[in-house]
């Protein structure tokens, strides 16, 4: 950190505000519990005591207004697609989306013949992390969420983006 480094006592760390913000964001991404199908069971298992998502700072919230991450856990039908979009729009920035399971990433088993299924939730909302599996195990979901945290950590919210 250039000039200021090692100028203070041991218990003072000097760091960019930019990095502090992204670090604090990445370590507590509260997620919006949004189970649309069977993947929701694995999401619940991941949040429950054995896998305990809270140890990586993720707390389930029931309202989109309190959440940072939306885990789309399961099949999204056409009827649901409109509501997924609406809920995503209700979330406050910065917001992230994890598409959990085959259905949310690509339509899964309904890929060819499911007339009523949205072929991947990325058609209606931007997705940050895709977790494959049918359904993915809690470990896979946690892996995906750690990937998301890495992504958030690399963000620089205060730096002006170059166009």
């Amino acid at each position, binding site marked *: 950190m250039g000039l200021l480094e090692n100028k203070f006592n041991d218990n003072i760390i000097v760091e960019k505000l930019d990095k502090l913000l992204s670090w604090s964001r990445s370590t507590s991404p509260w997620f919006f519990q949004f189970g649309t199908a069977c993947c929701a069971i694995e999401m619940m298992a991941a949040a429950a005591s054995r896998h305990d998502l809270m140890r990586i700072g993720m707390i389930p919230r029931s309202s989109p207004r309190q959440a940072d991450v939306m885990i789309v856990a399961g099949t999204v039908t056409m009827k649901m*697609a409109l509501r997924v979009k609406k809920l995503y729009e209700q979330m406050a920035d910065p917001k992230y989306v994890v598409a959990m399971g085959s259905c949310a990433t690509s339509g899964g088993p309904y*890929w060819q013949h499911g007339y009523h299924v949205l072929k991947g939730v990325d058609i209606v909302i931007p997705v940050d992390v895709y977790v494959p599996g049918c359904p993915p195990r809690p470990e896979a979901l946690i892996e995906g969420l750690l990937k998301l945290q890495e992504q958030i950590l690399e963000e620089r919210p205060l730096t002006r983006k170059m166009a």
Partner: protein
Amino acid sequence: MSPDTEKIIIELVLKALNGDMDSINNLDDRVLRSKAKAALFKAKKDPDAYREKYSKSSIPNDNENNFKNDPITSYVLKGLDGDMDQINAIEDRVLRGKVKAALVKAKKDPKSFKMQVGLKEVKKQTIELDEEKVDIEESINQRIKKLALEKFPQSILNDDVEKFLLVDLKSWSSLSAYLKTEESLFFDSLQCQTGFDLGEGLLEARYNLHSMKHDHYTEIRIQVTKDNPRIPSVEEVWRIADWFERETYDMLGIHFDGHRDMRRILLPDDWEGWPLRKDYDVQETYHGIVIPKMKEGWE
């Protein structure tokens, strides 16, 4: 098959050919019963030949044959008298197992077992005498047809009512209420209501009814054309039909007249078309979301 069971089956089949089905139906041993029924089915193709073939070799009428209707009991009685060889010689494993299990029970109190068997035999004989006069019972569907045609002429359209009743569209609303309230039928539970596309411009609604009081079932079918798919609703007769009929409407587009809440139940209200019809064509877009017809390259 051991010679013993074979003999029993032949005797039973001969009896059944003379119109006495009860002795087969009253068999406790399921395996033996089904074997006897299978043999009867074969024998019925040419009853005279069967009679000729086996009537000569009829079984000598000794004491043991008092219990021929129930082989297990006869074996157990033999076992109680110390004759285990016959039991061990039974080829049918299921029967042998059952006999041995029954023997263990009987050995705890041989006297009362013998008394029971004696009583059972007496009872059976009297029942047989009574039931010889009764004709073969008519099925529930035949009974419904008879009752329905008395009340609502031309309401049942099919002649062979073994599996289902094909009901006329016009009489369905009054017939449904009758089926539920008539004391001897009393179909108080609609277990399932669903629909089919039969092709050739025909749609079909099916109703599976059950009576908790009498414990009998029936199936009602109603056919309508695709041009005018309207069926009177039974939602006010059986309340459960509310959602059943909404689902049939959602999937096949059969409109139920008189239903108080005729909306789609699964698909969104603004969806186009009826997915379970054979000529269904998926709409191109839904609220701006493109619906791909079919993706290639994955089977």
